[in-house]
């Protein structure tokens, strides 16, 4: 598909002969009254995005209110939600069994809406470490954990972690003993996966909030393990 306006790289200057400093505010700051103006040039793909949205709105297929609420919902999801589930599971063995059976239902118990796509948890233990990938695209439990990191969606991780997981984990600073089996889960079907990490030693008596703070997004993917800070 060749087209006059087709960019061959991410950012393309539209040749307005204009820069943001003429607005009288520092470069890099969004104009206060025009939240839709983003830093940087308006690319062809940004115009395509706006055009598709405008057509869908004009045809009544979506409403501005639905768009706004969906954007808010996107912003409301984060790895902290997954961390809460893990911390609760560490403290409550019966909850853990329910989490392993059905993440979405377990999340609902905590007032978390994990969305309609089923999510499964895979549990790390002393003899096995689990890590998640989608080699075919970028399937990820977004409706619970929020956006997937860029590296999860990129070639190096997707191609290498199924083939040389220990080398990839080592790049993340995670070295695993040979006695610990490394189990890679390739998300190919609709349902998504998150890792239920092993509770680290040295956390006896910790409450749920303190435990949850140990569980990062990378722990939920399996490229890190929760660690008690050494300070």
């Amino acid at each position, binding site marked *: 598909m060749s087209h006059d306006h087709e960019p061959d790289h991410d950012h393309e200057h539209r040749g307005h002969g204009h820069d943001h400093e003429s607005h009288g505010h520092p470069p890099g700051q969004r104009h206060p009254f025009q939240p839709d103006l983003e830093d940087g040039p308006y690319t062809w793909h940004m115009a395509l995005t706006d055009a598709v949205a405008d057509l869908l709105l004009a045809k009544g297929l979506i409403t501005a209110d639905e768009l706004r609420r969906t954007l808010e919902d996107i912003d409301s999801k984060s790895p902290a939600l997954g961390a809460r589930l893990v911390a609760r599971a560490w403290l409550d063995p019966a909850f853990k069994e329910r989490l392993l059976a059905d993440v979405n239902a377990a999340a609902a118990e905590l007032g978390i809406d994990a969305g309609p796509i*089923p999510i*499964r948890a895979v549990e790390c233990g002393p003899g*096995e470490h689990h890590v998640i990938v989608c*080699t*075919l695209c970028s399937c990820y439990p977004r409706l619970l954990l929020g956006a997937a990191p860029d590296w999860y969606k990129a070639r190096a991780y997707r191609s290498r972690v*199924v*083939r*040389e*997981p*220990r080398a990839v984990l080592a790049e993340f600073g995670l070295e695993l003993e*040979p*006695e610990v*089996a*490394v*189990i*890679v*889960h*390739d*998300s*190919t*079907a*609709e*349902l998504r996966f998150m890792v239920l990490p092993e509770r680290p030693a040295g956390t006896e008596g910790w409450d749920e909030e303190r435990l949850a703070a140990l569980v990062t997004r990378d722990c939920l993917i399996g490229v890190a393990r929760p660690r008690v800070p050494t300070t």
Partner: protein
Amino acid sequence: MTRPRFRPGQPVRVKALFPPGHCRTPFYTRGKRGRILDLVDVEPDPEERAYGRPGLPPLPVWRVVFAQHELWPDYRGPARDQVVVGIFEPWLEPLEDGG
């Protein structure tokens, strides 16, 4: 759904088919041997849905465990290292135990 075709622990092979078009059976599993872990879900056929068709009735999705040493002849890690992949039932064929 009719009686499930596979059972946990059963050896299976992924069919060595290589069509163009949308499919969710990763290339690196084609023709490889593994063992059924479980029936993880039942989902409409993505190969139909990708082209705007409903993909019904839905298909069983079996989690298959592949030993890394089965997948990659040059795998250098421990023998217990594995990859677990959800495979739609039509892509799997049973193997005799020990096959």
